């Protein structure tokens, strides 16, 4: 495969990673702002895991690296958010 084609694929991976991260963030926003435990809140992982994979793939090229870091940054934030809500939520709501 040509080098140019590989570059284009990696760049596309970077873009997809960012877009998937933004979609996951949007889902989290809708869930929080609506105040309800919406079913697609559970489907966030469906967007996050591919975003991580595509983000890592796009790190291998200098031109797509910034996009990969951006996508991974978003998924890292989502991971932090889930961890904070889970662990702190456990301590602030003393019911099972």
């Amino acid at each position, binding site marked *: 495969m040509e080098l140019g084609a590989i570059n284009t694929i990696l760049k596309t991976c970077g873009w997809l990673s960012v877009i998937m991260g*933004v979609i996951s963030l949007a889902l989290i926003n809708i869930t929080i702002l609506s105040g309800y435990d919406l079913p697609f809140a559970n489907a966030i992982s469906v967007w996050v895991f591919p975003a991580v994979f595509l983000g890592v793939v796009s790190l291998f090229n200098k031109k797509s690296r910034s996009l990969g870091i*951006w996508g991974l940054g978003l998924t890292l934030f989502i991971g932090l958010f889930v961890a*904070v809500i889970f662990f702190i939520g456990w301590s*602030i709501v003393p019911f099972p």
Partner: protein
Amino acid sequence: MDSYEKLLSKAKKEDTDYHKSGTKKMKRAINSSRWKIILSTLTVILLIVPTCYMLTFAYYAFGTKSTTLMDVSSKTLYITEPNTTLEEMEFDMDFSLFSMDLSFEQYKQIGDEFYPAKHYDLHFVLNDLVEKEEESKLEKIYPKYPTQKNQWIAHPKQLFVEFDNAKEGRILAGLPDETVVEAYISLDKLYEVKEIENEMKNVDLTWAAIYTGTEDEMLSLDGDVVSPIGYPVQPDNTYWSPFRDSASHEETFLEIMKELLPYEKIAEEVSTHKNLELEERINYLEKNGFETYGVVVTGPKSEIESIRKLKMVRLMKIGEVKLWNWAR
């Protein structure tokens, strides 16, 4: 066409191709940066709400704890609302940006059983109670805006009350024998709670109003209107109760007052009391001990009628009435 012209046209074509590909690259670069700006703006906007939500959780975990607000609410009701119990599993907590909703059910013992009395919905913004909704399921509603004379339990020195004691007596007499009754009793002088327990053995003594030096006129030293404050007398082994495993309910009552002291403003907002004046009342109790001027009892109608005839009972206000459930 001679070779010179051929060379010239070839050079011209190459130049045009070069420009074309340059424009294409430029367009692609512009497009890419446009999308970068759109997505980065979106990212920043979308980060705001989850970050605020995490900060809200952190506030309720490390700042004013959600459990503290819950404890303050429940303990306040135990000592300010006569004959009250709350159920742990009935508590519901919900968090939104910088705010917390707390809803729970309050129960009353009438006869031998507990009945839902009120449903509370409290809305806190950080640690400020900004909205309180009460949905009462009671037939007799305790005065919502306390004054000096509209209490159902009155100190011996308070000669005038807003309810008609004789009428309450007639209501009690007219009730069928197969009913159980909740009654608010004002005593003729101050007693130890144990003395009252010994005198009223055939009914359940659910709550005792404790004299804290302010109840003669229902006014604090500053001249603020206060309401009766007291504690549940019977052993309460429900997991949630602050009086669970309490060796002395009096000491637990005093402890609760001390615990509520830093959160007095919230406690006053949660309760129907205008003022709690905890510091003044704690000081009085620590110096003078615990004596009661009024109690809340529940039991069969006939037993309540016989209690009404006791010399120590000065006034009696009938609360809730239910069909027979006294299985003893």
